């Protein structure tokens, strides 16, 4: 089973595992790199946030895993001729009763009442009703009144034995969960807290915008606002106007200044959607002139005031933000990481980002920061490993980010700008305003795929040496998880042929080394292929390419679109091969020149 305890306590656990991560990297890069690796990894702040949703999702997975094991135990030991599916139903976890458990509850009560000669009570009848479907699979003639005739029936006796078995299994299930009870209770408390906070700010938002509802809708919502009702009636109308409290735009959003701008300057589809939603708004307000938006314009109906709608949207965003902030700042994950970041004392390292604590917090990144010391500016990097729904990829994420950390150097701090080199990637941060440059970094994509290839080799080493962090041998995944691998076909040969030089060039800003080996022009030509790839195959087009390649492999007919994609793909391959030839020639020439010089 997965190491759930580690995941639940990820922020503490990952820090304890830094020595293991160091061993993993030393195993790959060599003992001579131990001091450098140790210094770099111990110098960073490593945090592992977990959102309320991720925590809840992990608890469900934990319960499912335990349940799967117990189902196997039940299958091996059951007595009844009925199938496991008949006895357990589509059981997800043992928080809920399964058919044989209902039988068990009924049977215990029945025997008790039978012995007391009191089998005509309502409670017993209810319990029988819950188990009648299972009993009728044995014998459809059995009823509550004639059940006593079947007490020694072989199949009923088997069900009785299986009842004892299921009671034992439910006890085992609860025993298993005892160790996790504090996390389960904490998760429940977070859900309650979220619900309370969400409702509080939803009410404030509605109160601030009550003027946008007509008298009828105001009356409907009054009981909700006064806490007489948990929720309001006519939700469709009110949520239609304001948007649902759980996301999505309301019809009024389509009268904002942004919507107006799109109506003038946007794309045809966007204009159509804006008009459709405006018609829906009018219909909700009781004005129905058909589905043609222009009819509403020409009818001189009063449109919602743009400034008023912009205020509505600002209020919605404001209250969503307040709710989010209040909730997140009350979670242990945020509180702990906030304190750590504050104590880490890096320039511009402010509060942790909200996105790390929302939804599926499966994000991971390495962030560049510096701190000022008596000896000048020093690197103060932060590595974030979010724990989300995809637990099996956690160790892979850690290695990927720590490899960025290993390859990270502070180049210079001048004129309030910090320049970092990470592998082949150059990053510049403005220290005065914490605003990142939004220019695409020259070697960003090339750098990421090479980092990923090194990561996968390190992961292979981990498996070989049976070194693990969060994942175990059986739930460790490290291939096909990232979109960077879509460009494997560009770099595979290059990486395999020049691996040693690649690794040497990525350490401590040593990019000149790979230029010297393969030629700077050739290296940049290979880098250019990533831009070609992005222009032609980014996002869903890559999957269309994969589909076209699959059709070729299966001798299926290609559409014109498929042929166009294949042509572009082959063009990249051809260019890649030419570049690889030139790299080899350059290296050979360099080698011959160096030999000539040495011999002189």
């Amino acid at each position, binding site marked *: 089973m997965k190491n759930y305890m580690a995941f639940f306590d990820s922020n503490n656990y990952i820090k304890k595992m830094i020595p293991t991560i160091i061993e993993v990297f030393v195993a790959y890069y060599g003992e001579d790199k131990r001091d450098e690796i140790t210094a770099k990894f111990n110098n960073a702040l490593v945090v592992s946030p977990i959102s309320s949703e991720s925590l809840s999702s992990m608890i469900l997975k934990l319960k499912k895993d335990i349940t799967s094991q117990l189902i196997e135990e039940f299958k091996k030991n059951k007595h009844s001729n009925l199938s496991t599916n008949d006895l357990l139903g589509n059981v997800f976890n043992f928080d809920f009763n399964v058919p044989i458990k209902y039988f068990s509850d009924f049977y215990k009560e029945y025997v008790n009442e039978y012995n007391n000669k009191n089998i005509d009570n309502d409670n017993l009848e209810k319990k029988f009703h819950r188990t009648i479907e299972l009993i009728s699979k044995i014998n459809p003639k059995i009823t509550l009144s004639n059940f006593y005739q079947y007490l020694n029936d072989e199949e009923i006796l088997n069900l009785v034995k299986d009842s004892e078995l299921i009671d034992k299994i439910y006890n085992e299930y609860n025993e298993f969960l005892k160790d996790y009870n504090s996390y389960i209770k904490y998760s429940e408390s977070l859900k309650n807290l979220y619900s309370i906070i969400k409702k509080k700010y939803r009410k404030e938002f509605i109160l601030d915008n009550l003027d946008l509802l007509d008298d009828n809708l105001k009356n409907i919502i009054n009981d909700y606002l006064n806490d007489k009702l948990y929720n309001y009636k006519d939700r469709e109308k009110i949520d239609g106007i304001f948007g649902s409290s759980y996301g999505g*735009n309301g019809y009024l959003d389509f009268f904002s200044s942004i919507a107006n701008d799109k109506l003038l300057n946007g794309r045809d589809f966007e204009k159509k959607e804006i008009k459709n939603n405006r018609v829906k708004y009018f219909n909700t307000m009781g004005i129905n002139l058909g589905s043609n938006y222009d009819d509403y314009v020409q009818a001189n109906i009063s449109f919602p005031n743009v400034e008023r709608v912009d205020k509505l949207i600002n209020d919605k965003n404001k209250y969503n933000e307040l709710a989010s902030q209040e909730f997140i700042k009350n979670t242990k994950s945020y509180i702990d990481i906030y304190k750590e970041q504050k104590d880490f004392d890096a320039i511009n390292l402010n509060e942790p980002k909200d996105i790390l604590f929302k939804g599926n917090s499966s994000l991971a990144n390495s962030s560049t920061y510096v701190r000022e010391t008596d000896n000048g500016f020093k690197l103060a990097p932060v590595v974030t490993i979010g724990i989300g729904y995809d637990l099996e990829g956690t160790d892979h994420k850690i290695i990927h980010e720590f490899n960025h950390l290993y390859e990270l150097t502070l180049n210079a701090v001048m004129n309030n700008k910090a320049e970092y080199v990470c592998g082949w990637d150059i990053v510049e941060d403005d220290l005065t305003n914490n605003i990142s440059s939004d220019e695409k970094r020259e070697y960003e994509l090339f750098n990421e795929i090479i980092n990923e290839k090194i990561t996968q080799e390190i992961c292979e080493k981990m498996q070989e040496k049976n070194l693990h962090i969060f994942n175990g041998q059986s739930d460790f995944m490290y291939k096909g998880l990232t979109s960077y691998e879509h460009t494997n076909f560009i770099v595979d040969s290059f990486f395999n042929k020049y691996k040693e030089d690649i690794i040497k060039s990525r350490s401590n800003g040593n990019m000149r080394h790979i230029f010297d080996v393969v030629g700077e022009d050739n290296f940049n030509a290979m880098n250019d292929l990533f831009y070609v790839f992005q222009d032609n195959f980014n996002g869903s087009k890559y999957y269309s390419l994969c589909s076209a390649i699959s059709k070729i492999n299966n001798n299926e007919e290609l559409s014109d679109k498929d042929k166009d994609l294949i042509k572009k793909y082959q063009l990249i391959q051809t260019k890649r091969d030419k570049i690889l030839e030139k790299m080899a020639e350059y290296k050979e020439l360099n080698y011959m020149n160096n030999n000539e010089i040495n011999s002189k």
Partner: protein
Amino acid sequence: MLKEININILGLNNLNINIDILNNKIKNNNKEIKFNYEIISKLINMIVLWKYDYGRDNEFDSEEFIIELITDNENIIYKGKGNYPENYDDFKSLLGELV
């Protein structure tokens, strides 16, 4: 008329959702899943009011999104890396319900 929606979340995570509106089919990383028109409508309603490009941040491995709305005569792209629309969390939550 809207024919297709492609939702790509790129980087260290890799999510590709292809929504074939005409044939009522959805694929999540190439596996077919249940078509939910209500959630898809809500997603469209959010996307059409977004900017086309939210820019990029300077962090390594920050999440990138690329969303395409494909109609009979248009291919509309919305994207960003490390910078997201205001209601991106709600968008991701709805996406979570879809898949």
